[in-house]
């Protein structure tokens, strides 16, 4: 029988994790799970939460929102979880967030970036650890202007996510007095960017901001390289997923990218001992350095446990209130907090250059951090968010 013993539920804190174990996001999902698992193990070793052990129940949401809803409900109804964490795909994050509101279970979105989770579709039960799309564009916007120049050219994928990235940059461009010399929307799945890239070469911007993802990004970078564009114009983008860059051929490991965390940089971790310990333990355990995804998972599980401890209860309202607004020291320099107004984690974002080969005898170390931006500077002001996001805590 695979049923959890119902009696046991009272002796345990059960945290559900819904992750894209199968499908295109399997790798980031795996790293999020590793982070969560490590945090839970450490918590249990230290005596658990409210002197109860924490149990992590992991479900595969198959990278499909319908399955994500089903699995969230299964975790809530059958496994009697006290809180739910996880998701990489934004659609899954939002769908799961809605289910958790219905069941009044706290949900922390570890890795789905779409603005709506802490924006228009925010709920009092929902939190988010990773940066919002808005934060990514603004953080990199400041850093690009700061490090690379103020004459920009946009290249974005022509679908919902590309449009919201573009909106973000258009907002920051006004604040910084940037000149935009060109803007192109390329269809998703474009294989040949040479027409766009030729236009870019003629427009002579300081920076080409590429918002493509996945295979489109790889194709674009390879072609930019072969056209010699990289020697004349800097290339930058909102988010570099280290898992992706590790699997890229060396000629495509180029450009400046926003990073949500990095394991080998004084700008990121500084003298934070917790971070150093985490990196060492994680690397020893999994034979691979932690990524931003690992940190999402780890910090989420850790902060959820801290909130339950602080609330002295697993009651959803109490836990949510305990999590909200509480400042903590994460795995980076400076503090962080899930802010009251929309439950978005406010923490810094970094910026730097990707290189072909690992540095310092570490094949994983292909990123050089050059800049960082504080979280409260790059997220929408709290007052603006009040108009968009209504958390509607129960009275």
């Amino acid at each position: 029988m695979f049923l959890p013993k119902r009696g046991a539920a009272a002796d345990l804190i059960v945290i559900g994790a819904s992750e894209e174990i199968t499908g295109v996001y399997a790798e980031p999902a795996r790293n999020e799970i590793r982070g969560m698992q490590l945090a839970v193990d450490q918590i249990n070793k230290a005596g658990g939460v409210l002197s109860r052990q924490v149990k992590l129940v992991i479900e595969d949401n198959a990278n499909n929102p319908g399955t994500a809803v089903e699995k969230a409900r299964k975790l809530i109804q059958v496994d009697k979880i006290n809180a739910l964490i996880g998701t990489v795909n934004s659609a899954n994050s939002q769908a799961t967030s809605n289910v958790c509101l219905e069941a009044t279970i706290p949900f922390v979105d570890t890795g789905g970036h779409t603005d709506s989770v802490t924006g228009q579709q925010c709920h009092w039960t929902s939190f988010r650890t990773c940066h919002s799309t808005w934060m990514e564009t603004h953080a990199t916007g400041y850093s690009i202007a700061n490090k690379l120049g103020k004459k920009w050219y946009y290249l974005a994928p022509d679908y919902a996510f590309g449009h919201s990235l573009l909106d973000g940059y258009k907002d920051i461009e006004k604040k910084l007095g940037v000149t935009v010399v060109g803007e192109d929307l390329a269809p998703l799945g474009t294989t040949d960017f040479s027409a766009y890239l030729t236009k870019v070469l003629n427009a002579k911007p300081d920076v080409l901001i590429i918002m493509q993802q996945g295979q489109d990004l790889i194709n674009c970078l390879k072609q930019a390289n072969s056209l010699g564009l990289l020697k004349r114009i800097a290339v930058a983008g909102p988010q570099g997923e280290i898992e992706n860059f590790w699997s890229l051929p060396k000629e495509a490991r180029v450009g400046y990218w926003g990073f949500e965390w990095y394991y080998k940089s004084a700008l990121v971790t500084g003298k934070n001992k917790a971070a150093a310990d985490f990196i060492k333990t994680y690397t020893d355990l999994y034979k691979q350095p932690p990524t931003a995804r690992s940190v999402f998972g780890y910090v989420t599980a850790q902060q959820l446990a801290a909130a339950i401890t602080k609330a002295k209860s697993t009651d959803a309202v109490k836990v949510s209130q305990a999590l909200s607004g509480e400042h903590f020291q994460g795995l980076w320099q400076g503090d962080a907090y899930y802010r009251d107004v929309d439950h978005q984690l406010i923490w810094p974002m970094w910026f730097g250059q990707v290189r072909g080969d690992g540095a310092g005898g570490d094949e994983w170390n292909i990123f050089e951090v050059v800049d960082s931006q504080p979280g409260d500077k790059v997220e929408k002001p709290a007052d603006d968010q009040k108009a968009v996001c209504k958390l509607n805590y129960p009275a």
Partner: protein
Amino acid sequence: MMKFANVIGVSFMAVLLVLLPLLLPAVGLNISLGTTVILFALAASSVNVLLGFTGLMAFGNAAFFGVGAYGSALFIADVNANLILGLIVGTVCSTLAAAIIAPFLIRRRGIYFSLLTIAFGQVFYFIAYRWSNVTGGEDGFSISKPPIFGGSSPTLNGSSYYYFCLAIFAVLLFVLWRIMRSPFGLTLQGIAQNEARVRYLGINSDRFIFVALLLSGFVAGLGGALYSVSIAFSYPLLMDWHQSGDFVMMVILGGVGTIWGPVIGAAIYAIAQNVLSSFTPAWQIIIGGMFIFFVLVFPKGLLGLGAARRRREEEASQDPDVAVVPAGLIEGRQP
């Protein structure tokens, strides 16, 4: 007149479905999985209208399912948070979608028909993906559960929503059963078995296929509309051809051309997927393998097994591989 065995069968299924919200938690599954089974069964039944009853290899019904889902979700979110009205709007949308593509489809038979259903189904997927201002694109589209009659009427949740879906499903199943026994249904069976003969009885089979497509779009859309409310979400993958393939497989798993087959198939599929994916990341291999196994070994599905044996006993001798969906599938060279 129903045979005694059928009465037993129907009663058994009825009791099983009514008690499902009690049975599922007892075996470690959640009630909403039951709702999903019912709604997938609706989609599979819509495939069955074409595949089982009319002999048309439809491979694009997820598009109707998805149009129903988006239609009701958009209406509920943007116009009126009223469950009943939302379902009506979603179903009207999906029936209209069927009416739009039907003129392209009814001119072809056999695998060309399948090919066209795949391609046109993908058109709807593409629209949902691309028209993100309205549909939310790949991020999907959230709604909150609407009150049943709008305003301050109650909102259905968990098991009450399950019974709501079950009631609609039961009515629809009865209607389908009646239709299959009507003159219209008889003509559809005729088309499935021998379309040339149907035409030589002076019947314009194209018009029947057109209506069958509308019926199929209606049933699938109703399932989709109920599904988007069930999960309070709609997303483009609902319309992908893989989803269509899953619906067709449900029909085959249960038994093609039978009223209960799609229900049984949907239950096997949904429960297997749900349970397996909790245990192993290789669940898709097992599901795919199950499909292959059934196609090779039990092509008539679970229900077809019994029915086939009964028929075989009556018949003198027949090729054991006689097609479940005969003749009409291969397109003849007819004007």
